[in-house]
């Protein structure tokens, strides 16, 4: 089972090349892009997206999708923000954030597995419910002027290097280890690849799936703390775009949207691609609303590219088989109808 170690492949390499091209493009087009300060700035702004995208990667690899991630981040940030206002001690706030995030994720997992509801529909439903809760709890008033308890997560520096760098690296290292070497991580791949086969192989389908969503929730809680540290306020629009952006990061990084294939290395490249784009566009003076349209477009383009590669590989394989005159009983269909 532990042999299925996802090595960074062609697809991650492609994403990396695109990132490099993007960076070169913005370096030539604007004056202030290619500075160390700006690089740190991009990383700081990317921290919550980077962390939440780990969870999104696991969920998507398991064959799922979480539309409610942004709303969950918002609700956690809101509750912790209220806690900050009330002067609760920091460890309690951290526990609240992680516990609440994990709980919200677990609820999604339970609805999906025990209610046997398609992932996207279930999380669309919880997304609306969470959004309503945010609205009700905020009551049209923003939470502002919060004490900077969590500022260190974003603004702090260790040995002259911003804390977000360590935060991102540590989180990715941990989950790269889990997805590569731990049974849980491998089960996620197995479940996403072929849930029936995974069940027959003795993998607990429900537990794995719920686990993926719980991890997603837990990381959403962490991202909420980062968000508070970065923004110092909670508004009604909290987390509105981060869900879509993380889906985009995951598919740009080459994770198959249908599950079973992908890697965190790719996701990290995807996250950087998206945040470099956001930063670069601002420097070019492009209105920020364009960013949304481009992210939507990027999702479509990445998945299109993926399909193209998939079909090419399948064709090459079929050709190879024909050439070696091996006539198997049935050739696998190139594009299996999803039903």
């Amino acid at each position, binding site marked *: 089972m532990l042999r299925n170690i996802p090595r960074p492949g062609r697809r991650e390499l492609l994403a990396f090349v695109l990132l490099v091209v993007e960076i070169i493009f913005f370096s030539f087009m604007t004056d202030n892009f290619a500075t160390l300060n700006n690089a740190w700035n991009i990383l700081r702004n990317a921290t919550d997206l980077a962390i939440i995208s780990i969870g999104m990667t696991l969920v998507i690899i398991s064959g799922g*999708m979480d539309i409610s991630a942004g709303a969950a981040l918002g609700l956690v940030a809101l509750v912790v923000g209220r806690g900050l206002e009330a002067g609760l001690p920091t460890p309690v706030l951290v526990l609240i954030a992680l516990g609440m995030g994990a709980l919200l994720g677990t609820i999604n997992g339970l*609805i999906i597995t025990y*209610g*046997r*509801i*398609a992932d*996207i*529909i*279930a999380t*669309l*439903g*919880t*997304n*609306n*419910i969470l*959004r*309503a*809760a945010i*609205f*009700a709890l905020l009551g049209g008033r923003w939470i502002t002027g919060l004490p900077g308890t969590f500022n260190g997560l974003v603004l702090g520096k260790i040995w002259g290097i911003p804390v977000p760098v360590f935060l991102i690296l540590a989180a990715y290292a941990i989950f790269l280890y889990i997805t590569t070497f731990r049974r849980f991580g491998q089960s996620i791949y197995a479940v996403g690849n072929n849930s029936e086969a995974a069940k027959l192989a003795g993998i607990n389908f429900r537990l794995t799936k719920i686990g993926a969503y719980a991890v997603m929730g837990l990381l959403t809680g962490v991202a909420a703390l980062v968000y508070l540290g970065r923004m110092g306020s909670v508004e009604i629009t909290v987390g509105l775009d981060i869900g*879509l952006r993380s*889906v985009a990061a995951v*598919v740009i990084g080459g994770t198959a*949207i*249908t599950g079973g294939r992908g890697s965190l290395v790719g996701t990290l490249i995807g996250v950087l691609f998206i945040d470099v784009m956001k930063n670069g566009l601002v420097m070019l003076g492009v*209105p920020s*609303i*364009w960013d*949304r*349209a481009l*992210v*939507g*477009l*990027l*999702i*479509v383009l990445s*998945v*299109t590219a993926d*399909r*193209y590669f998939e*079909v090419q590989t399948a064709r090459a394989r079929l050709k190879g088989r024909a050439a070696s005159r091996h006539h198997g009983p049935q050739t696998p269909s190139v*594009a299996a*109808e*999803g*039903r």
Partner: protein
Amino acid sequence: MRWLSNRVAFLGVLALVVATVMSLISPYFLSLNNLLGMTQFGAVIALVGMGQSLVILGGGGGFDLSIGSVLSMAAVTIGLLAKAGVNVWLAALLGVIAAGLMGAINGLLVTRIGIPPFIGTLGTMYTWAAIPLIITKGIPLSGFPEAFGFLGQGSILGIPAQVVLFTIPLFILLQYAMTRTVFGRSVYLVGVNSEAAQLAGINVKRVRLSLYIISGVLAGFGAVIMSSWLLSARPDVGNGYEFQALTVAVLGGFNIFGGEGTLPGVMMSALIVTMIASGLQLANVNTIWQLAALGFILLGAVIINQAISARNQKRFGIKV
């Protein structure tokens, strides 16, 4: 559980229950004015609900998240054309055609390129949502002639014009197409078993593509109604419609895996969703709770659908 299987009857009972509860909450609920005003809101919901339902019906994970954004795009198209001096009725027609083209893009992404529907339409949802805001800079386009307002504000024999002129005729047309034409029956077959449909000589891809186009066109009609009603083209007018459409479709009995559900069910569930929204408004409940209510209805409805299919599976030994 058996009574749940007759979807339209079940929804009828549910509608009565909702109406009773709402009239207990607010005495104005059952007034003729409110009931007619309600159908004004419900007209667009029913249209986009039918579009979503048909896409879902075609199976293969069919799903259209971009409905609301297509509606916004079409509205802004109409607004821009009208502003450029094009006759407003012609502009409206072109808006509907534009919406159909956007539906075709979704359909081509799904059928020709093979992108999973939810991710393809998620991408177009955000793209189409952003472009109207970019074009208009977030400011509604006004300047429609007063006469155009009739479609959304006027009434015929006391019934709102959009219901008489759009929702009911389109419902009858689609219901006829679904039940009495080769196309309609092939949609069901494609949804139930696409391979069998393919073997039976049905062009599965073309059927699904046309469903996405229909969904786009219906959103286009929604845009005409909304622009006429507001006498301006708001760039964010379609926000949230994709979710209402999905809720209406699922509550209406459309199995998200396709091949199951009827349009009368959609009309009934559109009525129920509209009653709840309108009742909550009368009861002075913040509109945001309607969003939460929709969320709960959606989840509840899917769970009921799943229970029904599980029961059928057990009883008839077929996988639905």
